[in-house]
Every structure is written in structure tokens, then in C-alpha cells.
């Protein structure tokens, strides 16, 4: 079982395809759940505490806007945990849950620089492209399984 970061981090299709293969998709909803179950915070979306931009300093410099650092405090731990990543590019406007283009760029940059296998795909628009996307994801996941077995 490999922990795979997905981008957008709340994608239904990516998360589902990985779960079908028995892997763990690192989805943002789990992080959000942790946050909202914290008894100290009772009012999301105003749930960025003063602690978050400080935590975000691990991923972004002090000059970076606090909005990016606050978001990175939630997404960052997922990137740290990732053993592989699937990034979907060219998605329609409004796709994804981050709501910040710079955070998106920084997260993808960190995933690419992490020295883990990364599969980059383009958002499909028709049947053939979707077939190709599903095939590529399945091949990628199978190759991860093989390397996992070899390491064992």
C-alpha cells in the first residue's frame, strides 16, 4: 500500500481509482476533518489560527503571503507524507479546492522536487482521453506496486 498525493487534493476520480487498487490517496478532506474536529476551532471557514502561518513557514518563506502559508499548513503535511504523486494539469477553471493559484503552484513544485515518482496528466475532455488517463493511472500504480515488492 503506497500513500499517493493527488492533485487537485479533493479529486473524486483520482481518489477513487487509487482506492480501487488498494492504495491510500492523501486527500485534503482528511486534513480538514482533523481541523474541524479540533475543539478549539468552532467556526470554519474562519478556521485559520495564528499557528497556521507559522507552521506554513516550513514550506514557504516569510515574504510569501500569509494566505499561502496558512493553506500550506494544511496541504504541507500531505506532501510530506507522500510516497508518490499524481498531478492533473489543465483542469477547467474553478477545479480544485484550494482557491489560490500560488498555493497550487507551490504544492506542485514541492511534489516535483520531492524525489518521488510523479505522474503528470492532462485533464481529459473526451472519451479517448479519459481512457488514456485511466490506463496511465493504472500503469503508474502497478509500477509502484512492483517497486514496493522489490524493496521488500
Amino acid at each position, binding site marked *: 500500500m503506497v500513500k499517493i498525493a493527488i492533485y*487537485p487534493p*479533493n*479529486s*473524486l*476520480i483520482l*481518489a*477513487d*481509482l487509487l*482506492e480501487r487498487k488498494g492504495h491510500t490517496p492523501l*486527500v*485534503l*478532506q*482528511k*486534513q*480538514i*476533518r*482533523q*481541523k*474541524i*474536529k479540533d*475543539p478549539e476551532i*468552532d*467556526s*470554519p*471557514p*474562519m478556521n485559520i489560527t495564528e499557528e497556521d502561518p507559522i507552521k506554513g513557514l516550513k514550506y514557504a518563506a516569510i515574504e510569501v503571503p500569509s494566505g499561502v502559508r496558512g493553506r500550506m499548513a494544511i496541504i504541507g503535511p500531505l506532501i510530506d507524507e507522500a510516497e508518490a504523486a499524481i498531478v492533473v494539469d489543465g*483542469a*477547467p477553471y*474553478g*477545479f*480544485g*479546492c484550494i482557491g489560490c493559484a500560488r498555493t497550487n503552484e507551490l504544492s506542485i513544485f514541492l511534489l516535483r522536487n520531492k524525489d518521488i515518482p510523479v505522474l503528470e496528466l492532462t485533464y*481529459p*475532455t*473526451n*472519451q*479517448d*482521453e*479519459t*481512457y*488514456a*488517463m*485511466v*490506463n496511465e493511472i*493504472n500503469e503508474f500504480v502497478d509500477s509502484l506496486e512492483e517497486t514496493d515488492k522489490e524493496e521488500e
Partner: protein
Amino acid sequence: MSQNLTMSPDLGTEDWDPDVITRMIFIGPGAHVSEQEVVSEFHMLGLPLTIKNTCYGSMISGKSEDVYKAIEEIRKLDPNHIFTKERGFAPGDPRRCRGHRFGPREGFHQMEKEYRILGFVSNALENPKEVEIEEKKPVDVDEFKKIMNECLENKE
């Protein structure tokens, strides 16, 4: 909008339990089951779950062990058309529930977008096949020139 942002909901013990998770179940286009069948099947499992019928399928909430068990069983109904996804907030949470807000909840728009290609994903899972995609290339300059000249000549 201010009441949405400052709402301090009165949550029950289950809402604070870190082991209680929520999952959304989507029924893709062309599925052989209906939302009602999925919900009935969840009830028939006899697990301690909160089950909600929705327009896209259903939503279940409960202890993670029960939720994963229920999902495993429900996928058997139509493995290629039933998709599931985590959800951070519990069903009916006033901070996200549409009933307490003025418009679709966050996350709905992406769900809408992904639903458009969900049918293709189901087809790909049902009948896997190799496809070759022809990459779109820009028109060659010489060819463009030729076509342009032809058009100009025809015009004269």
C-alpha cells in the same frame, strides 16, 4: 453571509469524535442501481451508520471501520459505476449544509465538473482498452501559405 462565517454550531459527541468519518457515494451515469437502492442496501447492512439520500447518490457517516465495511459491500452492487470520496464535514453540518447557506456548498462545483467525465471513467473501467491520442499540432507555415494563396487566388 456573516452568519455563515461566525456560526458556532452546537455539535453532538459524534461530531467531535475523530474516529467518525463521512464519505460520499456517487452513482455515475449509466449505473445499474438507483440512489434509493443504494440507501436501502446501506440500511440492510445493519451497521450503525448515519445514511443520507442525496441527488448524486448518498452520504454515510459513522465509525471508520463500519464505513469502510459498508463501502466495500456497496461497491459490489455496481463496481464500475459507484464512486466514493471522503468528506470533511458530517452530513447536515450547519457550517456546510445547503439548508443553512445561500447557494451551493463548497465542493459542489468540482463535483459537477467531475461528474461530466465520470461516465467515461466508468466505461474505461468496464471495457479497458488501449487508445492512441493524436496530439494536435499547429498548421505548418508552408501549408498555411499555400492555403492562403489559394484562397486569395479564388477570390480574384
